């Protein structure tokens, strides 16, 4: 088991390296750098001004070198200005060149400086992740129990009326992307045109203190899309368990139906959904981006949109590192958890 985890962590690191390099490559293509220079300086910069701006920032070095600097395995680029002052990635405002370290990258714990937010990337990502964490916590709290309940109820008796109704509901929710359901919810529950002003159409105030009124719609919107999928998986696994021999034996012994479901079937039926729930995390990340844009909730997804549309390279890299790690860690947890939950599988 230890070796298995070690191997997986190795593959994880390799994946993260490859992906960040890919992001690095794409964000450092010349037209993107030009856009960065123009948003940083002004939009009427001439080509010479753009290239001198990029030269000063060290953006014109070869991509592998810049990647090495970002990782912290190569000494960071320094540019001597005409007046003799030295500027560079590692030299923060207010520091002199002599005081600042030579290497500054991920390995040294420095994530760079965000050009959009004018702040250190680590603090931007930290605060925004906390906000998204709050959102995700409530999503999980709403999504998982209701999805499991839905799936178990539908799977108890295959082909029954309850099954048909709940399955159709589950299919409908999987067919409704967040930007459709969110728009419908806002239209019905928050707009002045319909008049049912039960909830608020934006969640901006929920960043400070979340109430049912301003936070329920975004949470519901994200949960619904993932819920249908988990419910269908739970249903499939539940119907499979319900046809097993030991359930029939219990039936014939005269155990009551509710007892069979609660004590015999449920535990075995919940193994498969566990993996599915874990693998839902990457999907939820997409949902988070859409919903945070739609409801104007300034969390991690919103930062992703800001960073990407302004080509804020350092921030974008940090965002992709975080999201890739989320995806890979959940995959690892789901694999390990599966082994623990299902004693029939053993990894040597």
């Amino acid at each position, binding site marked *: 088991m230890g070796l298995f985890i070690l191997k997986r962590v190795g593959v994880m690191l390799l994946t993260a390296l490859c992906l960040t390099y890919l*992001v690095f490559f794409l964000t450092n293509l010349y037209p993107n750098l030009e856009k960065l220079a123009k948003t940083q300086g002004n939009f009427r910069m001439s080509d010479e001004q753009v290239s001198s701006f990029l030269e000063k920032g060290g953006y014109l070095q070869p991509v592998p070198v810049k990647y090495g600097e970002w990782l912290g395995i190569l000494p960071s680029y320094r540019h001597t200005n005409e007046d003799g002052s030295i500027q560079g990635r590692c030299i923060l405002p207010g520091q002199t060149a002599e005081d600042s370290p030579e290497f500054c990258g991920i390995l040294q714990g420095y994530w760079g400086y965000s050009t959009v937010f004018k702040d250190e990337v680590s603090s931007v990502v930290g605060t925004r992740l906390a906000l998204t964490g709050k959102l995700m916590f409530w999503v999980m709290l709403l999504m998982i129990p209701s999805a499991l309940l839905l799936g178990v109820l539908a799977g108890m008796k295959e082909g029954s009326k309850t099954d048909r109704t709940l399955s159709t509901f589950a299919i409908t929710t999987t067919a409704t992307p967040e930007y459709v359901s969110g728009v419908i919810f806002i239209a019905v529950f928050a707009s002045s045109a319909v008049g049912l002003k039960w909830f608020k159409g934006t969640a901006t105030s929920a960043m400070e203190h979340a109430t049912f009124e301003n936070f329920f719609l975004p949470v519901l919107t994200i949960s619904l899309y993932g819920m249908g999928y988990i419910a269908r998986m739970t249903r499939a696994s539940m119907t499979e368990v319900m046809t097993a021999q030991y359930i029939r034996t219990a039936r014939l012994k005269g155990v009551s139906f509710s007892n069979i479901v609660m004590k015999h079937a449920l535990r075995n039926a919940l193994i498969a959904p566990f993996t599915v729930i874990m693998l839902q995390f990457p999907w939820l990340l997409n949902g988070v981006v859409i919903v945070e844009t739609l409801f104007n909730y300034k969390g991690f997804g919103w930062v992703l949109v800001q960073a990407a549309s302004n080509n804020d390279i350092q921030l974008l890299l940090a965002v*992709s590192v975080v999201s890739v790690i989320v995806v890979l860690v959940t995959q690892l947890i789901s694999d390990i958890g599966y082994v623990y939950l299902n004693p029939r599988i053993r990894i040597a």
Partner: protein
Amino acid sequence: MEPLTTFEIITRIFYQFTSVWIALILLFAVSMAFKRRLGLYGKLYDSPIGMVGFGLVMFWVFTGIFGAMDLIVTQDALAQVSGMKNKPPGTPVSGAEEGQYAWYLLGGDNLARDVFSRMVKGAWIVVQIAPLATVFAFMVGITLGLPAGYYGGRLDTILSFLSNLILAFPVILLFYLLVTPEIVATGVPNYMATVLFVFPIVFLAVLLNSRFYTQPRFRTPLLIGVLGVAIWLYLSLISNDGAIVQTSSYWIPGIPNILDLFDIPGGVLVVFVSVVFVNSPTVFRIVRGLTLDIKTRDYVAAAQTRGEGPWYIMLWEILPNARGPLIVDFCLRIGYTTILLGTLGFFGLGLPPESPDWGSTINEGRKLLSVYLHPALPPALALLTMVLGLNLLADGLREESLKD
């Protein structure tokens, strides 16, 4: 003129869709009559869920096709009529000329364009791109997945690592990196198109060659004919204005304009390529898994004993037997592609801002959602019903294919 009442709006919309209803009724009548002879497609008509799903899908397919032929649309989808900004459904068009439709059936949007016509035109964009992108993703997935599953070993390790790499990437981040005007300017999507669109040709070539390898006199002309057409289409697809890649500093020549059958604007190409790119790793994994399962069957062993080549076994023994799950996944994946296209439109990526596709119209409509509902709701419901139809269709197909 008076604004229309709700009842009149519904009747008029129903009437506008006449051609779609006729096509749907014809399709269902013919299919019902011959359903015993139509294989899996015919069996679909035994399952109510599958029929509802298929009906919904075909409704939007016909809407898209007839909409492109200007049968359903009432107004020009891009024209702005003064005084029609954000007007509610059923408002008469101010200053309508002779021969012009006199109402905005579903109202006007924020730029005074007809919501109804835009929704219908948007269907055409989805109906064009989504199935085609899915087909390409399947070609890539199958061409790489079959050998990975069949040979295993190092090839499998490398390809699986690559597919996991793409799958670990959040889709939206990838779109934000790939589908921007700056990336289009560097020509990256053209390179990706050049690589990705080779796979269908490879697939076709291997498919035909492995089948007719023993009859060279039939195979050689067939291959020359099919590949000739395929390569011509391929070259027309990837070259624009006589160039495959055209950036400010250099260009790679393609085929000249006279031979170029169609041009694809850079914005559409990048959307298409990135949707194929995102979908193919999942297809790869499904095909690989199915191949791993099927290659242990007796008929594969029999073919190996007969001395058939590996590609013949993969494409003519394993692939046909994996068709059930693949067809079901194909339907689901078109739905997913539709959602992805909507996501792109929602973030304003790729397609031009005035494009009537559903994602962009939802994005435009949502900004004024608290006051005006009518611009955002029709495209949202259209997308919902189309994807729902595809999911129901997949469910029906799964049930019917499990029966035998």
